[in-house]
């Protein structure tokens, strides 16, 4: 019972106290949509505590390029492309360095926690779908999820617990036509 209450309170606390938020600037260059996601309101205490304890944290940004369906089924828009930007971060207590690895690519070593947060705040992306015309029919739908503790395999069943160890931004949509040039 104690355990359940602890989980409940921690979930409520995680949702209510921190307000992870996001904004998106889009560019449309030669028919290709690219942009920059900016994140603010990181739960810095939780992240630093987790990585210094030896856990890894994980940030995931889901970006969907969506075409507005104006014809047969106007209430169902079509996702033409989806990108998931993932960054895993950890701290090496022997080296006293923070590390960040976007996806499975190059690892970045960062000396201070402030540098790490700064690194996590900006994310660039580019969709590969070429928008030849009617780009005003498209919009980008996106959301960011932050897990201060990235769970290993058997602990994935915590996902049954809604919002356990998770900070999310609301889903937002940015029109390609209005915000980009």
């Amino acid at each position, binding site marked *: 019972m104690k355990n359940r209450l602890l989980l409940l309170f921690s979930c409520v606390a995680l949702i209510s106290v921190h307000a992870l938020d996001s904004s998106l600037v889009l560019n449309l260059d030669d028919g290709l949509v690219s942009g920059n996601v900016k994140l603010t309101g990181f739960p810095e205490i939780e992240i630093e505590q987790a990585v210094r304890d030896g856990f890894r944290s994980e940030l995931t940004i889901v970006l969907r390029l969506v075409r507005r369906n104006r014809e047969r089924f106007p209430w169902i828009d079509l996702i033409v492309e989806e990108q998931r930007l993932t960054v895993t971060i950890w701290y090496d207590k022997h080296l006293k360095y923070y590390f960040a690895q976007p996806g499975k690519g190059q690892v970045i070593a960062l000396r201070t926690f402030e540098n790490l947060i700064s690194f996590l705040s900006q994310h660039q992306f580019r969709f590969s779908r070429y928008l030849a015309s009617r780009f005003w029919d498209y919009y980008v739908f996106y959301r960011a999820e932050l897990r201060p503790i990235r769970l290993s395999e058997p602990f994935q069943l915590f996902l*049954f617990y809604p919002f356990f160890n998770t900070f999310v931004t609301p889903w937002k949509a940015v029109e390609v036509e209005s915000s980009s040039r």
Partner: protein
Amino acid sequence: MTSTVTPFRTFANTRYILPVAGFLLSYFLILIITTVLAEQIILDSSTFNNVVLIVLAVVFYLLLGLGLLGVWRYYHKQTEQVAQEGLRKKISITFVLIALLTSVPLGYIAIRVAIISTDIIVQSDLFDAVDKGLEVVYGVYEQKIKNLTDAVRTIRVSSAELLQKDWSELTGRYGELVYLTYIKSETEVLTVGESNFVFSEWPALSEDGQWLPNVRDPGRSEVIWRVDIPEGYFLLVARMPDKVSLARDLLQKNREFLLQVRTYRSTFLFMFFFVFLFLALPLFFLIIITSFVWSNQLTKPLTNLKNALSEVKSGNYHQRLPIESSDEIGQLTKIFNEMVSDLEETKKKILIGEKIETWKDIAQQLAHEIRNPLTPIRLSSERLLRKYREDPARASELVESSMEKVLDQVDRLETLLVEFHEFARSPAPVPQIIDFDAMYREITAELDLRYPGVEWINRFVTVSNLKVDPWQFRKMLTILLSNAVEASSPPIQVHVETAVVEEEKKWFKIVISDRGVGIPEAYRRKIFQPYFTTKPNGTGLGLAYVERVVHEHGGRIWFESEVGSGTSFYLLFPLEA
């Protein structure tokens, strides 16, 4: 009496196909969902999505709903058909008990294994061992880097040639060294070693000389660090032994896992229990549903047999049951059908025999009754004829008295024939709702004219759903009340009582009692037989008519009598629902 003959079904076991197929389909569906979901939830969260969760939830709650529906229906029937549900209840409880007896220990074992496994991990020295291992690995790194740092400090940097020469000597002694950059100033940089390393792509280095692993390419074992010298500083790359690098990666990965086990042990066990229930409950409910379906299938033939026996008991010999299997139940059904066929045949024979016997009796009685008046007619006629032959002049003296006797007997004969005609005609009853009290008052008013001075003592209940043929019912009551009066001696009292009784269904009960002479023991078995009478002028058809009317209305009649004290007739008529 209506009869229903169910056609025989030659294709056996068809009723089992649907439940068996449904059970197997549900079982494998739940098994697949459970297996796939269990792996997805625990091992591969990336493919776990809300659609699968919704499907699982729908299946789960569907089965839950069906289970509850089954329980509700079961108890609903339980209250309606207590006697029929006894066996079904036992079978259902047996199924559920088997399910509980197996699933509860299995669930307990699964959860205990999870608890013990996590306990072993948490309570063991694994975490400390991994921490110490990491310290050892990093110690190896530190020692090697210290040795290499001391060595490279001996490199002369006054000229590029000397730097190259000393580097060559050092790499001969220290094979780990890969690459070196000497930075004197922003514009004066010298490099030696493997040319495929580009420092600009490496992470910023600490000014305090902290080494860093090659984080650019995961899996590589190089380290990079900075060595300050009076003339500037070196940036150095050395290759650590692969086994040490591998050990570092593995230890770090397992340390993270052990840390999660230690932190989330209790939460994990709670979630494990939750997921276990989430996945196991549909199977459990499937067992409960199956128990209801199967118990119904198993008891249905027995229930049918019981109902059929009740029908046979009530006289429906046309009842047959379908033989749907070749097992014991099927054999029992076959024997039942054969037995009922034999019974029906025997009953027919008995009925034919009884009918013949009855008509013989009636013919004898009728002949006897007709012969009785014929004798005085014959005697009167012969006497008158004889007188006329002997003395025609004085024959007229006898004409009036003789003819009166003849006419009297002819009247009797006519009455006899009318009664017989009425009895034999037996029209089918045309039931309608009647007002018993009103009908009774009319009958007693007529009887008061025939039998003055009779005291009618009544105790009635009022019913509004007595549905009988008014004409037949009226005549039946008249006969019974007349008999009660005629059997009594003055002062005559006739008690009439009505009530509503409940025995499987609701009945209207009439009790007519007199304080008469009673019925002797010897006559009691014969009083409902046609033409049996103890009255001098009786036809013997009254009570036979009464009995037939009662039976044709689906009622019952019986009597209690004590010689010298009186007789009570009891009649039951079914009331409309």
